[in-house]
Each structure stands twice: as structure tokens, then as C-alpha cells.
């Protein structure tokens, strides 16, 4: 028998793009796919899928596992498009997997420059997709476009100088024909910025400095030359409101982190949320959570957008549980502060004034400040369920640090932190970025929890306590199941209405990413990165 070369009869076929702009805007209408880091432009980390319910969640079982070839912290949240899962393997490989079995189609390997010096691990949080193109921000501060079908690079642009301490860990956000990223490096005295690139060519479209330059409003909030190396970095994906045509991004700490007298002033737009026009990068409004921050309270949280009744009228809201320990409700059209209160023990401020500014209560030098350096929460994706009207946060409770400021001269490419934080108990190991297999911190050093806040009242509805702290993001679903994990190596399902534990699975390593949901062959799946592997769950058949 002779084999007929099948390709000879091939005619070139024009392919329909996989993910259009409309599909990004209407992500909630097609919950089978998960097309942005936080599931939709509203960033609610909410999936309308409803097959897994509080009633059957005990039948969840592991469907497959994909081990990554890396011992770096695994913070990647997958995208799923038409049965294919795209993940980043730390730091910057991209893997296309069969979402049904976890078998790999292709791996794109990116070699980072040895100049890369990310502060806190060579990690990456995920990808963006538009059409047939994936976008990845790299640890050496490049932005790379990759063909989603064959894993080949299409363009690669340098966003910033890695040797000067710039890095990128954020999952990009595609808005119309642009892909938006922001730079990390807040511990290296960078000057932060958010920038946008043409999705087809990689050509820079605009750049918004998160620290205003001389002559721009806000530059006066920095003393002398301190604006040049004041940090204000970005490392978590923003949100987008297509009706208002505004994109929202949380901005990191001012540098040096712990020595504010070196940078007198409010230090705009550090520890703020900024609302930008995605076509031009022009600032529409900003709101600063922590002026002249001495505690490293980055506002690098996910801006969660919610349309709901507020005190009797329908409003466009933004919910924000900040690293500084306060929960804020803002009007996202204007940035107006609507309400706020603490959600964990807070001692650095006794409350917020009518404009949302903290009423400072500085603690005596050398004594504990609540919350500690990692904050009441951090970059972990929170979730909002339109069904329960509850906002869900991964929190560190009763957690403090003693801050020891120190003068620090700026030198390009070197750490610029101005001192250090230590545990409130002498000699103890404060919970930090990573933990070992045994929780060696004591209860006096704080613990993790999931807190559900009723958006109408701002009050806690329920709380789920853990012994160890948590870096896991949260997913809620259209059947009121909440998925999250923690440092302890469990992945659990809670009842989103009550906080009751429905099911738990062991993943044998810390969960430092947010779960996501997708549907394939009529079946709902839940995926989460944990330890050094991607775990996928579904119902037993």
C-alpha cells in the first residue's frame, strides 16, 4: 500500500479568530471559556457555571495534573479557550494543554536575560489573549506575543530595562486593539508606569507614569528628585469598564518602602487606584488609599467592578479590600469615596474620614503595627458573586510587623527598601512570601481566613478561619460554590452563602493562585495552580 501525502490536497483556510474583542467584553455570556486573568473585565472572579453545587461538591475528584518544570512559586491562573488551556510555567514558558486530559500540545520557552532581578521570585501570573494571539509579560520586562495555535513567538518588545530593576509578573489585559501591562520593581527604586502596545505589531501606543514628572500635577507630592526613583509599581491585572471606556489599575508602594521621611509628601500615585482612558493612557481620576506610606501597603489589588443598588440607587461601584486593612467602596465613574471600614485588626489608622483618607494613629517606634508588611490582604484575586451580593477576600488576620526604617541611598539596579520589617515576637519567623511544609508561625503571629462582606452594609456576613495564612485567590460560581486554597496545601469548596466547608482536596503544596472554571463536553471543571503543578477537578461520573 502506498501512503498518499495528505497535505498536497490542502487549500489555505482563513481561520476565524478565537477570541474577539466582543467576546472579551461579553465574557460572562460564554462561561465555557475563561478569557481574561480575572474571568471578565469586571474582574469579579465569578463563573456563571452551575453544575457543581453545594449538594454535589462532595463528589469532586481530581481529573488530571500537569507538573511544571520549575521550582519557582507557581502563581499562574489559566485561560481556557475552546477546550485548550494556556498556562505560564515559571518564569516565562507558555504551555498549551488539552483541557480534558492535561496533555501538552506545545511549549514555548522564553529565555530571560541574566539581568532580570525580580524582588520576590521569578514568577508570572498568567496570559492575555486576543484573536489567535497570546500575550505574556516577562521577568526581564519584555512583552511577547505568541501564536496560540502553534506556540511560536510573533513579536517581542522590551518594555523596560531589567538591569535597572524593572520586571514584569502581571497577566496583561487586552482592551480593543491594545495590550496593557505595568512594570514591577518597587523594591529597586524604579519609576513605575502602565503602558499599552498594538496587539498586531507590539508598537507602543501610550505610557502613563505612575509618578508624575516635573510640571505634571502630583509631582509636588514628592520632595526634590525623589519622584525619579519612587517605585509605584504594578504587578496585578487591572479591570475595564467598556461603557465608561476606563481601565482601572492598582499601584504599588512608594520607595524606599519603609523610610517615608526620605520622600516627604503624599507620593502620588503610589498606593492608589488610577482610572485611565485605554485609548490614550490619559488619567481620568485617582484615589489614594495610603498617603506617604511607611508600611509597604501596595494597592496592588484587583479592582472589582460591580453594578448594583447602593443606598437605593443603581450605581457603578468599585470594591477594594486594601493591603492596608481597610475595605473601600468607590464610585468608579468619578473615584468618589462612598464608604470604608477595616476588615482585619488595624492600628496604623483609627478609621477613614469622609473623603476616605486614613485618620492616622502612628504606633510608637519599635512596636507592632497591624496589619503587618504583607497586609490584611494583598494581590490575591477577591471574588464578588452577583447572586449572593457578597464580596469575598483572602485575609491575614491579627497579623503585625515591627517596621525598622533606615536611610537608604538610591543606586540603580540595587535594592532600595529603606529598612526592614520584623516579627512582633522577638526571634519568631513572621509569615512572609513563602512557607515551608510545617507552619512554624504561632497563632500570635496571625492566621488566614476567607471573609465574606455584605456589599450593602459593609459588614461581615461570615468568616472561614485557617491556621496558616493564605495567598490563594477566590472563585465563586453560579451555583454558590466558593473555591479557594491556602498555605496549608488544601484546595477547598465552601458554600458561598454560609462559609460552610463542602469539600476539600489535598494538593500537597501551597496554593498561591486563584482558581478558575471552564466547561468542556458539557462538564464543569475547576483548575488551580498549587505547589508546582496545575490541578484540575470535576464531578465523579
Amino acid at each position: 500500500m502506498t501512503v498518499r501525502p495528505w497535505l498536497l490536497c490542502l487549500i489555505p483556510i482563513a481561520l476565524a479568530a478565537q477570541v474577539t474583542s466582543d467576546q472579551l467584553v461579553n465574557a460572562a455570556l460564554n462561561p465555557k471559556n475563561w478569557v481574561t486573568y480575572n474571568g471578565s473585565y469586571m474582574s469579579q472572579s465569578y463563573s456563571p457555571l452551575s453544575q457543581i453545587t453545594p449538594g454535589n461538591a462532595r463528589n469532586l475528584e481530581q481529573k488530571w495534573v500537569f507538573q511544571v518544570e520549575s521550582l519557582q512559586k507557581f502563581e499562574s491562573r489559566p485561560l481556557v479557550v475552546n477546550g485548550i488551556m494556556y498556562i505560564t510555567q515559571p518564569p516565562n514558558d507558555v504551555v498549551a494543554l488539552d483541557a480534558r486530559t492535561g496533555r501538552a500540545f506545545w511549549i514555548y520557552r522564553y529565555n530571560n536575560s541574566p539581568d532580570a532581578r525580580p524582588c520576590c521570585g521569578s514568577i508570572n501570573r498568567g496570559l492575555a489573549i486576543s484573536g489567535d494571539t497570546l500575550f505574556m509579560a516577562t521577568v526581564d520586562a519584555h512583552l511577547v506575543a505568541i501564536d496560540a495555535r502553534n506556540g511560536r513567538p510573533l513579536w517581542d518588545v522590551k518594555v523596560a530595562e531589567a538591569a535597572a530593576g524593572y520586571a514584569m509578573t502581571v497577566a496583561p489585559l487586552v482592551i480593543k486593539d491594545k495590550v496593557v501591562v505595568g512594570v514591577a520593581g518597587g523594591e529597586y527604586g524604579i519609576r513605575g508606569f502602565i503602558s499599552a502596545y498594538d496587539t498586531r505589531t507590539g508598537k507602543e501606543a501610550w505610557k502613563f507614569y505612575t509618578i508624575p514628572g516635573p510640571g505634571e500635577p502630583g509631582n509636588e507630592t514628592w520632595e526634590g528628585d525623589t519622584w525619579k526613583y519612587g517605585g509605584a509599581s504594578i504587578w496585578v491585572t487591572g479591570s475595564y469598564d467598556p461603557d465608561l471606556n476606563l481601565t482601572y489599575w492598582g499601584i504599588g508602594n512608594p520607595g524606599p518602602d519603609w523610610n517615608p521621611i526620605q520622600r516627604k509628601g503624599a507620593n502620588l500615585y503610589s498606593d492608589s487606584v488610577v482610572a485611565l482612558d485605554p485609548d490614550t493612557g490619559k488619567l481620568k481620576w485617582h484615589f489614594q488609599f495610603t498617603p506617604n506610606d511607611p508600611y509597604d501597603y501596595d494597592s496592588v489589588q484587583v479592582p472589582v467592578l460591580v453594578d448594583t443598588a447602593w443606598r437605593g440607587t443603581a450605581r457603578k461601584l468599585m470594591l477594594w479590600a486594601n493591603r492596608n486593612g481597610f475595605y473601600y467602596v468607590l464610585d468608579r465613574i468619578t473615584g468618589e469615596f462612598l464608604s470604608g471600614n477595616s476588615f482585619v485588626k488595624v492600628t496604623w489608622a483609627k478609621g477613614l474620614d469622609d473623603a476616605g483618607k486614613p485618620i492616622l494613629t502612628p504606633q510608637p517606634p519599635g512596636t507592632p503595627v497591624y496589619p503587618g508588611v504583607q497586609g490584611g490582604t494583598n494581590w490575591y484575586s477577591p471574588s464578588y458573586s452577583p447572586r449572593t451580593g457578597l464580596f469575598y477576600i483572602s485575609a491575614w488576620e491579627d497579623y503585625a510587623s515591627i517596621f525598622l526604617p533606615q536611610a537608604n541611598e538610591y543606586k540603580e539596579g540595587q535594592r532600595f527598601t529603606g529598612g526592614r520589617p520584623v516579627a512582633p515576637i522577638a526571634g519568631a519567623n513572621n509569615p512572609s512570601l513563602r512557607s515551608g511544609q510545617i507552619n512554624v508561625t504561632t497563632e500570635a503571629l496571625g492566621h488566614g481566613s476567607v471573609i465574606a462582606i455584605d456589599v450593602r452594609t459593609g459588614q461581615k456576613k461570615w468568616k472561614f478561619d485557617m491556621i496558616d495564612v493564605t495567598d490563594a485567590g477566590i472563585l465563586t460560581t453560579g451555583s454558590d460554590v466558593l473555591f479557594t486554597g491556602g498555605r496549608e496545601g488544601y484546595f477547598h469548596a465552601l458554600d458561598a452563602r454560609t462559609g460552610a466547608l463542602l469539600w476539600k482536596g489535598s494538593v500537597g503544596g501551597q496554593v498561591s493562585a486563584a482558581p478558575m472554571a471552564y466547561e468542556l463536553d458539557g462538564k464543569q471543571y475547576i483548575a488551580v495552580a498549587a505547589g508546582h503543578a496545575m490541578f484540575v477537578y470535576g464531578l465523579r461520573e
Partner: protein
Amino acid sequence: MRIEFCLSIALCAIPLCAQDHAGQYTQADIERGSRLYALNCALCHGVNGDSISNVDLKSGRFRNATSDEDLAKVVANGLQGTAMPPHKFDTSEMTGVIAYIRSMRDYGTGAVAIGEASAGKAVFEGKGACLSCHRVGAAGSRVAPDLTDIGSIRSASALERSLLDPNAAMLPINRSVRIVTKAGKVINGRRLNEDTYSVQLMDEKENLLSLNKADLREYKVITTSPMPSFKDKLSAPELADLLAYLLTLKGIN
């Protein structure tokens, strides 16, 4: 202007050619070795023999061997504690493999004609219809390997071999598969990954498919290349131009 680019002359200007084995082996041995190399070695060592760091098979210099006997030992026994596996070859196969490694750097014509890249681009996009299977940048099809950076990962002679004798040059992972599912659906595609229970491929419509072998009635890995040989389809000057163009494809940056 056309330049005749003579590899053997160019390389022998460098002292490393002092011990020249070329000419010592018959053309038939080299040909046989070339096919064995493509099947057994290219996956790790690369078509050009230099994919593994600190190992360059075509350089004629080896860390673990000097004589042909040494080479045969390395190939037969592998290198303990490394990824280099042992190979079972009969004497004539081993002679072929060694003959090929020794003449790798100037295998083929010995002199590869390099023409005009701009004319080669016209052949690539026109008469050669290469884009009907291959992709360069954002143009063309993805059903055959992407050639965007082929000029930086393959030598002129390796490229020429692909064009003249695709079957001999084909890497195992580039093989195509023909599948009939239990439901009777026929699927042709390029294999991307395979295990005992499943296979991942790109089909003719550039879709990524993952199939359970238990669901298949027929599964055939095709060891001949779907790419036609251009030996008689293109003239010598056209081939020279095409090679010049392929050598300019150095990736995206």
C-alpha cells in the same frame, strides 16, 4: 550577483580541519548514515549536530572520542550518566553513522549554491507554494513546521537536503498521522505529542486536537514526508535563490 559558497574550502581554512576524514567514506555509507542520523540522533543533536551544548558533531572534535573506533563505542554504549543512549546498529549501519558524522559539515553537494534572497522570496511565495503548508511570521499555514527562524537553526546544506530529499531530512516529531475514529471520521494532521493512551496533533484546519487512542479505529504514523521534493520542480538557480531566502529567516528579532 550569485556567489558560489564552497563549504569545504571555507571550513578548511580553519586549522581544525587538519585531520580531514572526508573522502575516506563511500557516498553510499554517508547516505545510509544520513538517514539513520535523521531517525536516531537528530531529535537530540539537531539536524546540524550542534543542538546539545558543548557537543558539535560536525566539528570533527569530540570530548569522548578521537578515532572512529572511539566514536563507535560512544554510539554503541552511550555515555553513562548522561542523556546519550546506547544504540543497536549492525556493522554496516555503524559505518554509515560514523561516515555521516565525519562528513556532516559538507554533506550534500559539498558546495551549496546560494542565490538572491529577494528572488527566493518570490519562489517561496509563488511557484514553490511553500506558504500553503508553512508559516513565516504571520503569513501562511501552520500545518507544517513554522519557518520564521529556520535560517538561524539550520545550515545551508541541511536546508538544501530538506528541499531535495524531504523524507531523509524529516524529524520524527514532524511526522504526520492518519486517523480514523470509531465513528468513522477521518483526521489527518501533524503529530505534536503522543503517549500510550493519547495523541495530540494539529489537523488540516489548524485546530489542536487531542484524541484518546481507545476511540480510534485506525491510527497510522506516516514516515514519509508530505512535503514534495523540489529536485525536479525547481531549477538550480531557483533552488539557490530559495536557499538564500531561507537563510535570511532569522526569527522575530
